């Protein structure tokens, strides 16, 4: 055997990436606990209300904060994680090792997907147990699957931030981009309580179309599924192009 099997590398790398994220409270608390805290403030007080069309506000807000949680795993995880590793020059040692860069990247994506699913399960369980919100299990499953599959643009955004900003700037950059994006997309509060210009802006934002995936699983979407998917595909292309550009710039500086 001249090289180690790629699957074994991928498994070992993913395991360590999960441990690394889990042991950094800045990551694990921010992404697993913060969405629940937000839901407690914004969602619990109105969780019992049912809209005229039969949609439970509690379930609607769980879907919103679910979208927030997965996006946050992607944007903060990749944005701050990649920037930190660049700062510590982990990339140089990894680059000299037999681990192919693509396997490393795949391990990071798998890690983020694992954390996303865990964050969603924790949040939804909290909503069910503490908020008394009830939907058929198939609806919860659909929300989880849709939010995980649709998270691609935020992986791109995270990588773009991670390769573009330094380790000290990355947390600020990620917050400055992601928090306003979430507010302006109606994830924290209904859009009709937002200033008029935000209401006009929202339909052009990635998080707005991302949340539609979860809202429409409850029959509360504002647009057809294919429209949301098209927008998300477009944003994926844009963010991945930005990420690849920053990655190549880094590549030229460090490894050319």
């Amino acid at each position, binding site marked *: 055997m001249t090289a*180690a099997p790629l699957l074994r590398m991928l498994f070992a790398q993913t395991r360590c990436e999960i441990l690394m994220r889990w042991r950094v409270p800045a990551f694990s608390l921010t992404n697993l606990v913060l969405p629940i805290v937000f839901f407690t403030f914004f969602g619990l007080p109105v969780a019992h209300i049912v809209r005229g069309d039969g949609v439970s506000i509690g379930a609607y807000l769980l879907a919103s904060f679910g979208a927030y949680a997965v996006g946050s795993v992607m944007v903060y995880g990749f944005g701050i994680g990649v920037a*930190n590793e660049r700062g*510590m020059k982990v990339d*140089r*040692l990894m680059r*000299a090792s037999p681990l*192919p860069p693509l396997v490393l990247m795949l391990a990071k994506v798998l890690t983020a997907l694992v954390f996303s699913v865990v964050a969603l399960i924790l949040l939804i369980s909290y909503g069910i147990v503490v908020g008394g919100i009830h939907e058929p299990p198939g609806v919860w499953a659909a929300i989880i699957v849709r939010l995980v599959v649709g998270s691609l643009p935020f992986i791109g955004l995270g990588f773009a931030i991670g390769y573009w900003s330094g380790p000290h700037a990355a947390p600020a950059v990620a917050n400055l981009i992601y928090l306003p994006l979430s507010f302006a997309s109606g994830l924290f509060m209904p859009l009709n309580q937002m200033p008029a210009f935000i209401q006009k802006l929202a339909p052009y934002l990635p998080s707005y179309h991302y949340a539609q995936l979860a809202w429409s699983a409850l029959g509360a979407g504002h647009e057809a599924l294919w429209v949301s998917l098209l927008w998300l595909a477009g944003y994926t292309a844009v963010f991945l192009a930005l990420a690849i550009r920053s990655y190549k710039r880094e590549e030229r500086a460090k*490894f050319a």
Partner: protein
Amino acid sequence: MAGRPPSVVELRGARKRFGALEAVKGVDLAIGAGELVALLGPNGAGKTTSISLMLGLRRPTAGEARLFGLDPSDRRARSRCGVMLQESGTTGVLTVTEVVNLFRAYYPSPLPAARAIALAGLDDKARARIGTLSGGERQRLYFALAVCGDPEALFLDEPTVGMDVEARRGVLESIRALSGAGKTIVLTTHYLEEADQLAHRVVVIDHGVVIADATPSEIKARIPSKRVNFRPETAVGASTFSGLPVQSLEITDHRVHLLSHEPETVLRGLFERGVVIRDLEVTGADLEEAFLSMTRRP
């Protein structure tokens, strides 16, 4: 040369330019299986850039680099190499054993984790998180990561930097044992002493070129390793030193400064010539000035 096995490492006319600075200016170097080679040179001489070229971490601006006859970034070549680099880190929240196991997964037939950790002398830190290690311990961890895959070739860039005397002795012993077991080892150092203790072959690099490639004893004979400094009781001229093994001589303000690899012979010669010596100082020569004298007097 037909039928000769391919070199483990080969640089052919390799050059590397970073903007205005040419760090490596045409290096030809072939390292065969089982060799223990020290790349010796002062800081900024081009040692790290040369290793980066060998490993494919940098692409030569001109010339070629081969690793096991392959492009250095080829995974089949990388899988046969263990690497310890300067200025590379790893995340602090994993334990020593966890990260060693991770790196073992990169290689087809790795050593047991405990064996790699023992070779680096980190047994008592096996369960410690990397963030809690001292600088020297961290350096030993990188050594463990380099050897854990049981690779055929080891590339060690300044392996003992930041280690205390004991740790350093342990790692040098491990390097010797690995070499004895048939590994090809390329290491960089700016200590002549370290190169002398370890290597079968010393390649001296300065200002991006190879200025010497020989056995440690040959190199030692050419590199003035001591700086001698004294005040002669009566004025002396350069002719006083003719025939003595002096590489660099400077006489200023009634003081004599010279570099030599045999200070004892020089001093005996001076006594025999009736020179009375006051305020004698013999110190280890700075490698930088030693190389300067070598390039001045080929």
